[in-house]
């Protein structure tokens, strides 16, 4: 048996800046920007169309998500069943996702089927039918989900959080029975006309398409979308800090501590992310070590900055052992204060720094992971090259003094709202 020294860690090296894959940027005949990133080992093609069709764009609640989710329920020339049969026979997938500001419609298929699948998907994106029966079923499903969600403390805490952070209006809207019942196809068509036909969008192609495929994709989206005005994102108005309590039957208590913060372009954003990670952004975080590993009050507690490029919120949340929420809130406040009162050690900072640099590297670990990361930034109008470089450098440059200054500036517990939902 070889004798080895187990007490000394093996040698290891600095975490490098990821190699960001190159992509081509082409302007199509109608002005739409198409990004093409060739890569991957499998003969598949993935296409994402990002349109300015997020929830904030629509006055009526639930309309934006229904408009997106029912795109594949039939087109002006195909029933819902026909569409599903054709798409699925090719083994292709189509799905959608939405943030507050944007929506993406995505598809993936084998390269050999690309033309056929793209014809189907483009038809669904551009000419949806929104048939009454499918809309009715969707409404029933949404209503049932809502009833279940309202019985979950964590769901109720999330809805209360938006009321605590934002002034009542567009930003505090949540699903209600009335808004679901009020859904009708006219409103969906109207929203679709406004948000899904415009070149105020991004197109991303990933995988191993042939040159002919690229021309076909350019042709499809370059002709069928029409030049439109750029949509101006609304900015939120923030509410006065508040403490909200909801008493309901439960086995655990959900708590949230939150405040308005800033967007990804704010000068403090990057280093604040380091501070947030120390507080509650990874498994070794202060909150995890204290509330989970020391006190055993919870299975998990996290903090994160939820931001787009222009604005954001800082959110700490957890599901806590019944009856212990006041103690948990005290401990959270204590950890927040400690970051402004005591300087973080170089040792702890080095650890978080390396963990975060590893995360940056992992977000580009494979061609598909890279394309997802690039797309996520693109949705927010952020260039991945400059952003990633800035991210990498800022994490490396952060000092204990920077963190203490940021904690004093942004992490004062008295400026945070608290939400408690459960058996009080």
């Amino acid at each position, binding site marked *: 048996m070889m004798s080895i020294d187990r007490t000394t860690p093996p040698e290891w090296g600095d*975490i490098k800046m990821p190699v960001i894959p190159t992509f081509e940027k082409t302007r199509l005949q109608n002005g739409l920007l198409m990004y093409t990133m060739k890569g991957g080992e499998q003969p598949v093609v993935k296409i994402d169309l990002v349109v300015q069709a997020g929830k904030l764009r629509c006055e009526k609640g639930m309309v934006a998500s229904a408009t997106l989710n029912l795109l594949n329920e039939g087109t002006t020339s195909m029933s819902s069943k026909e569409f599903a049969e054709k798409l699925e026979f090719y083994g292709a997938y189509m799905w959608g996702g939405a943030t507050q500001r944007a929506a993406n419609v995505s598809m993936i298929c084998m390269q050999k089927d690309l033309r056929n699948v793209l014809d189907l998907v483009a038809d669904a994106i551009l000419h949806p039918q929104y048939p009454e029966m499918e809309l009715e079923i969707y409404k029933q499903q949404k209503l049932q989900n809502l009833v*279940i969600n309202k019985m979950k403390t964590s769901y109720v805490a999330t809805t209360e959080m938006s009321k605590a952070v934002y002034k009542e209006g567009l930003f505090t809207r949540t699903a209600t029975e009335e808004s679901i019942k009020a859904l009708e196809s006219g409103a969906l068509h109207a929203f679709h006309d406004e948000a899904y036909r415009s070149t105020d969008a991004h197109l991303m192609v990933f995988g191993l398409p042939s040159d002919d495929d690229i021309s076909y994709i350019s042709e499809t989206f370059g002709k069928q979308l029409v030049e439109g005005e750029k949509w101006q994102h609304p900015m939120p108005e923030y509410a006065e800090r508040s403490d909200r309590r909801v008493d309901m039957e439960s086995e655990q208590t959900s708590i949230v501590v939150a405040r308005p913060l800033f967007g990804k372009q704010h000068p403090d954003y990057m280093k604040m992310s380091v501070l947030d990670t120390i507080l509650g952004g990874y498994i070794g975080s202060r909150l995890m070590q204290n509330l989970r590993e020391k006190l055993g009050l919870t299975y998990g507690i996290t903090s994160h900055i939820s931001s787009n490029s222009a604005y954001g919120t800082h959110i700490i949340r957890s599901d806590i052992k019944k009856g212990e929420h006041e103690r948990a809130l005290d401990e959270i406040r204590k950890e927040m204060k400690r970051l402004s009162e005591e300087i973080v050690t170089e040792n702890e900072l080095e650890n978080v720094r390396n963990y975060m640099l590893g995360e940056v590297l992992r977000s580009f670990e494979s061609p598909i992971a890279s394309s997802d990361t690039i797309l996520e930034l693109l949705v927010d109008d952020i260039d991945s090259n400059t952003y990633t470089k800035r991210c990498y450098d800022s994490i490396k440059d952060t000092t204990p003094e920077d963190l203490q200054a940021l904690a004093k500036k942004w992490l004062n517990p008295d400026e945070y709202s608290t939400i408690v939902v459960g058996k009080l």
Partner: protein
Amino acid sequence: MIRYEKRQLSNGMRVIVSPSPLTSVATFNILYTVGAKNEKAERTGFAHLLEHLMFSGSANISDFDYHVQKVGGDSNAFTTNDFTNYYISLPADNIETAFWLESDRLLSPAFTQERLDVQKKVVVEEFYQHYLNKPFGDQMHYARSLAYKVHPYRWPTIGLEPQHILDATLDEVEKFFYGHYTPSSAILSIVGNVEPERMFDMAEKWFGGIKRDQTKEEIAQEPEQVEERRETIVKDVPENRVMKIFHTSGRAHRDFYLGDILTDILADGDSCCFNQNIIKGTKSMTEVNSYISGSVDPGVLILSGTLSEGTSTEQAEAELMKEVERIAEEGPTEYEMQKAINRTLSGQMIGETSAMQIANVMCIDEAIGDCGQINTDIDKYMSITIDEVRDFAKRTFRRENCSTLLYLKEEK
């Protein structure tokens, strides 16, 4: 096609390396062939509790996570009824740190009473968060207890009840660990920008000296079910659900592939028959699902549905059975078969992209037979015939092979 090399160390541990030069990270995945099925009936949830304790440090390393993070890594674990799986994802250049960490905690983890006491509390909170503090969170508890009477699959990995976790002692923890976590119960896979020979050398260096035998134990096998079972649960939930559970084979048997394709035909995608004939046809249910458990020992095939307002449970059950009986009598149509196979084929091409997933699947495949299955499974699916699926349906969807769970809302 996934390229890989496989070796067995002198102590019995299996090592699989899949080099992928296109990335700068690596996934270090270690699977132990121990899970909730190795637990005693009065200490359910034990394997999962132990998984938590494995992050408490080891003889030469006081803080596991600290060293993972220090080299830019991230790590986590999960427990199933069959397996416990640990992974570290880290920059490929720093891979040796993963060998150091994982081998030290296999050699000698640092279990203490204090750590055990805290992790019991944490796991009990996990129990509440995921299973008790939401409607239907405990549905699978009832389903397992109904379908299995003898086999330890009758409880879920979190355990039967929080008290079992609170009752665990330090002595039991050590016994369970040293009896089940051994080189021969370990399968290591490394996927990423690494060189196989170098990995095999490192494996021998860090793990080769660990010698320990696995405790031999018989796991009680489930006798054949001979009569229909039914159970009705009434709780404060907002809707009615039906679940029909049928016994079937384990993951290594050909029936697994037949069941997998059959459940795809029934419930996968928008064009599947449950969606078209039930959700959009009779509208008697708002959600319908079907899947096969794929466990190592004989598993179950499940049909489940959420009832629309006004649908009786009899009607819902009849509609689920109508679809499967059609397949048991006529077999799936050629078109249905082809569609399911096409989706499986493309699903494999599309899904094979994450290193973490590949690393985990290769370990599981190796545990049930051969990690090369990751490449050959697709041929098994392609070779399935209509007659085989019909025959499978006929054998499986028998009344006396069925357990029906009705999970209903209280009448207020």
